[in-house]
């Protein structure tokens, strides 16, 4: 059946569906720009999960108890799983995983900046769970309402698992904040280093975010970067303060009138520098992914050869 509606008619129908709160599904008509934005966001998100396995994976060998070791392995494993279903969601838009991975390895695709910071003590594992996953959940809970069906469903599933990670991270930091003086110091040091990178995870301020308007119009996103960031700050600041931890921001204060915790200026120069590839761990992260990919090449070739042999025998 040919569709002889004009572009304007199709667009109007598409936007009306979004307005009614319907989900857009893979076979449905969608503007090229909608598809392009989704591929960009979903693939960045998938890459973030996969690259995100590295900073935490680095501490699996050093986990201080067997229970913590199993929990951390399971967590990093979940991230691999999230990468998998996000790549599937991206594939529903007509790209393939190999192509996306090639772009990542070539340094052409982005992933969350936060994973370009190093994990330096065991407390970082707790802090990432609480602070970084907490920020991710904030963003992903919003994306679970996204207008694109496969992305929205992937987010529902991912959020459920991320909530476990968040609870485990919070449990760890709570324990260490009340633990020995050395543990407390580790927890504080972790907060000092992860605080700003976690706040940057929400993306540039609305005034500088080039994609926000389009994304909001088509309900790919339903809240702006600054809105989400503020909600997150309001939730998490009192929790850290209750544990007696200090937020590394001398300008932080509570605004009675708005009910907001107001932070000092985020170092956006740092944000853009890390995005451009000049963060503390960018080169190393990509090198580690490339190495795993190259070392795995003969394995993937063997699997293919074996599958062909089986197909011929059948």
């Amino acid at each position, binding site marked *: 059946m040919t569709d002889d509606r004009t572009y304007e008619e199709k667009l109007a129908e598409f936007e009306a569906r979004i307005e009614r709160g319907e989900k857009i599904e893979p076979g449905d008509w969608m503007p090229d720009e909608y598809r392009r934005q989704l591929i960009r966001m979903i693939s960045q998100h998938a890459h973030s999960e996969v690259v995100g396995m590295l900073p935490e994976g680095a501490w699996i060998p*050093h*986990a201080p108890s067997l229970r913590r070791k199993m929990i951390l392995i399971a967590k*990093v494993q979940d991230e691999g799983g999230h990468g998998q279903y996000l790549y599937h969601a991206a594939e529903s838009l007509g790209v393939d995983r190999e192509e996306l991975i090639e772009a990542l390895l070539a340094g052409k695709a982005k992933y969350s900046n936060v994973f370009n910071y190093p994990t330096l003590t065991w407390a970082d594992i707790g802090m990432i769970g609480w602070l970084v996953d907490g920020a991710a959940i904030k963003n992903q809970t919003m994306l679970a309402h996204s207008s694109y069906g496969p992305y929205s469903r992937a987010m529902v599933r991912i959020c459920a698992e991320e909530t476990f990670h968040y609870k485990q991270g919070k449990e760890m930091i709570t324990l260490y904040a009340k633990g020995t003086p*050395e543990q407390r110091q580790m927890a504080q040091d972790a907060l000092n280093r992860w605080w700003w990178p976690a706040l940057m995870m929400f993306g540039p301020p609305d005034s500088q975010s080039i994609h926000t308007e389009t994304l909001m119009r088509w309900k790919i996103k339903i809240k702006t970067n600054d809105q989400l960031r503020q909600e997150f700050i309001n939730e998490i600041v009192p929790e850290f303060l209750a544990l007696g931890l200090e937020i590394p921001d001398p300008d932080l204060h509570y605004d009675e009138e708005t009910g907001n915790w107001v932070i000092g200026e985020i170092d956006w120069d740092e944000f853009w520098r890390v995005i451009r590839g000049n963060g503390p761990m960018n080169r190393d992260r990509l090198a580690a992914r490339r190495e795993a990919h190259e070392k795995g*090449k003969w394995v993937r070739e063997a699997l293919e050869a074996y599958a062909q042999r089986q197909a011929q025998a059948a």
Partner: protein
Amino acid sequence: MNKKLQQALMDRLVAMADDEVILGHRDSEWTGHAPILEEDIAIANLAQDEIGHAIIWYELAEPFTGNDADSMAYFRDARQFRNVQMVELPNHDWAFTMLRHYLYDAYELALLTRLVESKFEALAKAAEKVRNEEVYHFRHTSDWVERLGLGTEESNTRMQRALDHLWPYALQLFRPMPLDDTLIEADYFPELGELRSAWEQVVIPHLEKSDLKVPDAEPIYAHRHHHTEHLVDLLADMQMVARSLPDAVW
């Protein structure tokens, strides 16, 4: 239970636990670095299961060792570990890792199949639970041996090299510990000669079917208290945080 039997049982349980915790640690080193994303996920499962099994065996031994699982894993030195050397060797490549796992899984499955009949009831019960998981490991690593053995020339070469390297180490699994006779007499633990033939009947045909030649080699000369320097490195990695603050709760 007399003292000698207790000692014998403790030695074996600790040896089983040490094999599992060290292998689980090696598996976990792949998380984030596996050849395909699906295998990052699969090997993370193997790692969690093996560490989980180690906890089960350490806890069964606890009345005799007087130590909980974490004390056993984190506060003993290489000289006190009783794992076989095969599991402490570095991962090398994916061929080595999968083949080692396969040889170990086939051994563990054969062992557990006998342990479900153990007269030491707690061990029999635990063996049944662990066996259910081990069946999956065995299937998974058997598949890998076949796929890599029959894949490309390169994958076959890598597998053959790994097999030549690993075979003498694998045979260490069947070297008796000093008090084993006491355990066998009490029907607590199987006889290792019989276990080895059962294992060989499974692995040799599978390796041959996968186009791999089983080397004609002697077992390495090592008892379970003999280790390579690799275990020292592994434990340094594994124990560093726990030992940095020995009184802290993590």
